[in-house]
């Protein structure tokens, strides 16, 4: 999700009979367990790779190789959106766009300071308070390891105490001497935050860029499911670029593909202490299905019904205006595209410890696949507003 504008509000957990999920400590790995372990490995791989807004080619390569075995074709458009096509059983069947953004928030170097320090500004919306003490990778002519530096507490002047340091006052410290650093890093270089993939209790996993690599993992799960299911619809799966700086990749992806239906897959705020109930969705209770002006009512209804029919866990989410997701751009593309939004609940958005539940990703991927199989001409008729 990008900046604060158009933030989706709220959800309520709908108690549904959840699929009985495998216990994680089973001795022998059954096929379903292996399926989710593969999904976890994929999520780990794509959250360890960097892909800051506008600089997504590295992450795109990893995603492409993982999707390729399951699709008919892969290509990139002019902005770098990575577009996979999977043919349906009927050529004249509906064409559906499934979009998840592959970019992550990051930093861009503005100046190499005397003494060998790098000043920066952000690509995407940071809470500047999370930056001091973070490890980063700077992409100069070589990659350089660094930390976001800060003054030791005893040097913080009285008038600055109790205040948050501004981004302009922060710097990346690589420890390299100035001359050596200038040979490698120029203004304009990109820096990505660094965090190992963290395995928490049950199926909770944490790391950086889960927003929205979790969504990319949903698409991957979906395409793996579709591999074994009959579907008429022609499916475009797109890993979009530059979502975090204002939902930009999706604008041209939707135009270029001109789909009959578009579904954005993103993350939404997970439940944390102190948050208001309407602001968050619970982790582990399935993906959130959004309703509101940004969403075609029939699409939301169909997603809800599909989840119900297949006994998949889900939650409802309501957004009073344009959402901060690719759905925002897709809906108003061309002559208007009926659009839906499916979100993975995620805690601590835009930190390097974004926390998700693997079961939500799996359920979202499966729901998306069943939604695709249900797309037929009868359903398409219902999308016309009478």
């Amino acid at each position, binding site marked *: 999700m990008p900046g604060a504008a158009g933030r989706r509000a709220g959800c309520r957990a709908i108690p549904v009979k959840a699929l009985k999920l495998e216990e994680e400590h089973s001795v022998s790995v059954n096929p379903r367990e292996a399926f989710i372990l593969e999904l976890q490995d994929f999520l780990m791989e794509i959250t360890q790779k960097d892909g800051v807004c506008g600089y997504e080619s590295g992450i795109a390569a990893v995603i492409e190789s993982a999707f390729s075995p399951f699709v008919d074709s892969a290509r990139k458009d002019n902005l770098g959106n990575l577009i996979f096509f999977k043919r349906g059983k009927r050529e004249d069947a509906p064409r559906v766009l499934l979009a998840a953004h592959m970019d992550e928030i990051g930093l861009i170097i503005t100046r190499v300071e005397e003494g060998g320090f790098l000043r920066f500004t952000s690509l995407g*919306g*940071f809470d500047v*308070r*999370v930056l001091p*003490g973070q490890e980063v990778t700077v992409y100069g002519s070589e990659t350089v390891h660094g930390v976001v530096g800060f*003054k030791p507490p005893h040097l913080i002047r009285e008038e600055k105490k109790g205040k948050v340091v501004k981004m302009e006052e922060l710097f990346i410290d690589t420890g390299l001497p100035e001359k050596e650093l200038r040979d490698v890093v120029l203004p304009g270089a990109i820096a990505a935050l660094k965090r190992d993939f*963290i395995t928490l209790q049950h199926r909770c996993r944490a790391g950086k860029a889960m927003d929205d690599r979790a969504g990319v993992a949903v698409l991957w799960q979906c395409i793996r499911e579709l591999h074994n299911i009959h579907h008429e619809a022609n499916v475009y799966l797109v890993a979009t670029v530059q979502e975090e700086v204002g939902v930009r990749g999706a604008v041209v992806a939707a135009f270029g593909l001109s789909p009959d239906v578009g579904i954005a897959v993103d993350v939404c705020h997970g439940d944390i202490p102190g948050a208001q109930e309407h602001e968050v969705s619970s982790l582990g209770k399935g993906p959130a299905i959004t309703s509101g002006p940004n969403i075609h009512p029939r699409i939301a209804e169909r997603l809800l019904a599909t989840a119900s029919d297949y006994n998949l866990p889900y939650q409802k989410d309501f957004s009073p205006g344009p959402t901060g997701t690719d759905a925002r751009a897709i809906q108003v593309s061309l002559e208007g595209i009926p659009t839906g939004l499916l979100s993975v609940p995620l805690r*601590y958005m835009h930190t390097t*410890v974004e926390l998700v539940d693997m079961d939500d990703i799996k359920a979202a991927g499966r729901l998306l696949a069943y939604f695709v199989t249900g797309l037929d001409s009868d359903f398409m008729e219902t999308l016309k507003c009478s």
Partner: protein
Amino acid sequence: MLIKELSQIPGVSGDEAKVRSFIKEKLAAWGIEHYTDSMGNLYAYNEGRSKKEGRGLMLSAHMDEVGLMVSSIEKSGQLRFYKVGGVFENTLVSSAVKVGPRDVDGVIGYKAVHLQKKEEREKPHQVDKLYIDIGARNREDAEKVVSAGDYVSFATKARSSGDLIFGKALDNRAGCAALLELLGRKHPAPFCAVFTVQEEVGLRGAGVAAYRVNPRIALVIETTTAADLPDVDEHEQATIVGSGPALTLRDDSVITHRRVLERLLEVAEEEKIPCQFRRFTGSFTDAGVVSLSRSGVLTAVVSTPCRYIHSPVSFLNAADWSHLVELVSAFISSVDTKGLEP
């Protein structure tokens, strides 16, 4: 590499057992005599080549690091915590931690920037509003793997890049590594090395260690703040990374003994070892309690400069550390040949 290995071990003040075990294993493997006291201080002896008796030299380095302690487990399964020692609070959010004896992984997050009001974003985080998330479903679920009272350390992987070593707890695992390095060498004179506990919560371990060892001269080996950073005036930079080990003139706990300081400067010059003064006179070290032990100990502090101590990731220059080892080694020889009187 010793520093990196030591850096990754959790060892918050009062919970130094894992660091102690690591050091003991090394000592045992090298056949070095050692024992521990009831607080957890670890003592090891280097016999030296000469058989001089009497009150001798003590070298010490603290094993503990700053960290957190679980104060309670909420109904939701989230862990509230206390600070243990002077953790720099502004680096807690967006960090990864290890909780309790089982090293359970956890994260410290915060409400997403999207959900914060402007006023909220403009205030520094309050520690009592933060919590650790281990992914537990509720309190009962969390209690299966962690308990209130569990110690919490940062989960930072140590890494090196050229001469630089990045990691948590370099304050003062770099000092522990230096002591180990010195213990592994042959010296002309004997000394007692003490790996102390609980420095970060008020120099608690070093006092009883000094009482037990009863040294005449003590060198406290530390890792100290380097503030050679943008927008910091030269005189406030404390120490500079890459300019050699730092000698303390005074801090809030000790005035370095003049004779010891002079001797350190002398051997540094003789051996052409770069060193610098620590140009910051605040904060406390084990030297404070060591120097006041029994009827007084001739005490000095030598430190490896390190940026961003007391945070999830700090870094130092391995050359500074090597120079510190050489300096202390030369000091041991010098005390043996020339003696050192107050």
